């Protein structure tokens, strides 16, 4: 589903590479934690997959596409195959819960009928049935993140990228979000989650990929957050 072959990324000439010689393969239906301290290259990793950045060296394959050769006008099609969730939710403050989710379908040209049937289903899945008409500021942080996940997943992409989705949430709420992501993963969706949250990683016991200074230092099935605690 996602494959990186000897991928390097250098942002400015002479600077230390953000990623250096990364080889990794993530299969369809995997649930993978991407861990590492700030500046380890996690964000660059995600940006390469979303093709917000291009690699300086090596090849990136996502959802059957060779991203090095993907022309700019095909990029939107790639992004429709990848749902993205962020630490800061990125909801539109002047739209209701329902509108926030339907917006994602509207702007990729889906018809009204499809939107009207898919959006309530998705809100049901993330546990927000009955809150369709709330505005984002009327929701708790956990609920806002659920809206963001609904928006990312409403198009049923085969890949879900999560960049610190629990970073702004308290532990109790985070568990709820993780259950939701786990449920989405069980539908066959590949989930790649960058995180700092050691408790969650330790609890879930999923595959863990650790980056350090741009190098891949660990790729472990059923791993935990820190090596020293394994």
């Amino acid at each position: 589903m996602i494959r990186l072959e000897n991928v390097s990324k250098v942002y400015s000439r002479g600077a230390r590479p953000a990623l250096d010689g990364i080889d990794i393969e993530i299969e369809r239906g995997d649930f993978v934690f991407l861990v590492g301290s700030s500046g380890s290259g996690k964000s660059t990793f995600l940006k390469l997959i979303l093709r917000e950045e291009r690699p300086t060296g090596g090849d990136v394959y996502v959802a059957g596409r060779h991203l090095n050769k993907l022309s700019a006008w095909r990029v939107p099609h790639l992004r429709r195959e990848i749902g993205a969730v962020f630490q800061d939710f990125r909801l539109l403050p002047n739209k209701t819960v329902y509108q926030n989710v339907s917006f994602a379908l509207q702007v990729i040209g889906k018809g009204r009928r499809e939107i009207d049937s898919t959006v309530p289903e998705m809100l049901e899945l993330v546990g927000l049935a009955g809150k369709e008409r709330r505005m984002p500021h009327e929701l708790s942080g956990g609920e806002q993140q659920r809206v963001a996940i609904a928006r990312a997943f409403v198009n049923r992409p085969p890949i879900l990228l999560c960049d610190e989705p629990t970073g702004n949430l308290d532990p109790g709420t985070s568990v709820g979000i993780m259950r939701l992501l786990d449920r989405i993963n069980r539908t066959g969706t590949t989930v790649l989650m960058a995180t700092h949250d050691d408790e969650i990683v330790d609890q879930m016991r999923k595959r863990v990929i650790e980056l350090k200074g741009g190098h891949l230092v660990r790729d472990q099935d059923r791993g935990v957050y820190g090596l020293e605690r394994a």
Partner: protein
Amino acid sequence: MRLRFIFGEVFNGLRRNSTMALSVVLVTFVSLTFVGAAALIQTQIGQLQDDWYGQVEVSVFLCPVQSVEEQCAQGEATPAQEQAILDVLENGSVAALVESVEYESKEEAYENFEARADSSLAQYLTADDMQASFRVKLTDPSQFQVVADATQGLPGVEEVQDQREIFDQLFAFLNAATLVAAGLAAVMLLTAVLLITTTVRLSALSRKRETTIMRMVGSSRTLIQLPFMLEGAVAATAGALLAALGLWFGVQYLVQDWLSSSVGWVDYVSGDDVLAIAPWLIVIAFGLAAFASLLTLGRYTRA
């Protein structure tokens, strides 16, 4: 769905950014009014040339009784000299250019003068103070110089005058007016482009959140950028329509109603001429907006 989305975004953008949109409308309005005015002046010049050049004559003035001109030192033109001049015009090398020749004797000239001018002035003059002339109509008025050269040096000719010279001053004035209008238009159009650029940029920045999400969920670049482009285009087109309307009213009330009643012998531009240039004004407005948007959008809604 997409169309509704696009138009909804355009409408929202214009509403949220209404002062900027209004300023774009007004600046395009003023600049295109100047463009239109320049075009109308040129149309007017064209009409006058068609109208007048067909009627103008070349006047070959013959030596009068007392002339201070050197070539008339031998006194009044004799009938033999007159015949020689007529021969040149009707049978000579320039005959092909000449449509008709009319002879106006000094007595006729006096009568015409008397009829036209104050009789109080005419009473101090006699037919001998006037001069005889040939009034030559040309098949092609622009060939004046050839006819003038052929007759200028002939004995008995005092002066060859092209009536177009009288109009040429008017046309020179109108052409200068066109240049002024076009110059102002150019400056205003530049202002319009800069203003549209700023407006589109502001609009794009104020909707950064939306466009970021649109990019993220994979909406096409067209769908992301089109609303901004249309926003500028709609405002600019509104300005063009206002300009067309303003010009139409100007022509209708200033030129047709007012100028025609005070100076009636001219065929003025009409509302139809404004309608003829209106589509071009809209095309210019639309093109400007598209150009300005392209200039800006690449940077602010990166795909």
